[in-house]
């Protein structure tokens, strides 16, 4: 019997091994935005609640890097990240918020309960800006450099140990 009869079995076991290995690997469910490195698309949103300023892509072109935070009052992880946004604001970071599919009164209540770290909050009722920048959920946070170019995307709520990374990305965008 030639050794060659074993080749198919070896190939098959190799395939099984590969499949078994891939099954044990953690699956990344996040959809990365392909807009990182691209210019922020044009938008000009009205304020999300009374007393807030609206948000426009033109606000990001004055040379200062900023955070663009995609959030909503109905989003539970957004409550969890509120203290981290406050900490970033304390460090002198300007945060522009965009409220997705949100009511002005709900936005006001969220800010009253969880604090308001935002310099501006735009109102995006049809997720238009969210779709235009390649964001697929709330919350997500983008680092935008002073020329209006998207430099970094953070998916999900900002945890305490994400703050240094965001500060470093803001510094790198300077």
């Amino acid at each position, binding site marked *: 019997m030639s050794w060659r009869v074993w080749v198919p079995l070896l190939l098959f076991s190799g395939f099984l091994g590969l499949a078994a290995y891939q099954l044990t690997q953690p699956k990344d469910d996040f959809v990365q935005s*392909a807009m990182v490195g691209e210019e922020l698309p044009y938008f000009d949103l009205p304020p999300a609640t009374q007393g807030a300023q609206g948000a426009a892509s033109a606000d990001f072109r004055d040379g200062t890097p900023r955070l663009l935070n995609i959030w909503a009052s109905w989003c539970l992880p957004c409550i969890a990240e509120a203290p981290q946004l406050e900490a970033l604001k304390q460090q002198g970071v300007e945060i522009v918020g965009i409220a997705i599919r949100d009511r002005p009164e709900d936005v006001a209540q969220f800010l009253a309960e969880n604090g308001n770290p935002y310099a501006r909050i735009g109102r995006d009722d*049809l997720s238009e800006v969210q*779709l*235009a920048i390649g964001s*697929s959920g709330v919350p997500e946070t983008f680092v935008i450099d002073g020329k209006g170019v998207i430099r970094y995307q953070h998916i999900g709520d900002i945890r305490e140990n994400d703050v240094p990374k965001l500060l470093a990305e803001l510094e790198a965008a300077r």
Partner: protein
Amino acid sequence: MIMRLLLSLAAFVLAVPLAAQDSMPPAPYAYRQLDDPAQEAAAQDLMETLRCLKCQSQSIADSDAPMAGDLRHQVRIRIAAGEEPEAIRQWLMQRYGDYVSYKPEVSASTWPLFAIPLLLVLVAGGILVGRLRRRA
């Protein structure tokens, strides 16, 4: 028996979705068809090949997620404005990469999927021809 049925019915009615969702009305064209049947058909064809970003393994035509509704709205108003379906797909792929499209495309990362079956058929054909020759 009837009591049990009633209880399970009550459980259905009272069930609260786990994921938080907004209370805003759906986008104007999330559930409304375009007036022009040809345009609506083009929009429908495209929506069936665009993947919902929130709910994996569903197209935006199949999903009731608010974000899928907002995407359907985008697709319909863009088709109504005269944009080509493939241009809309490209617009989305520029934002979400291959993930958002259900239409298979040959790219730097997907070419083996197309090349390997061809290669296997060639190898099998080669073996077959070799054996038939030996027999003859």
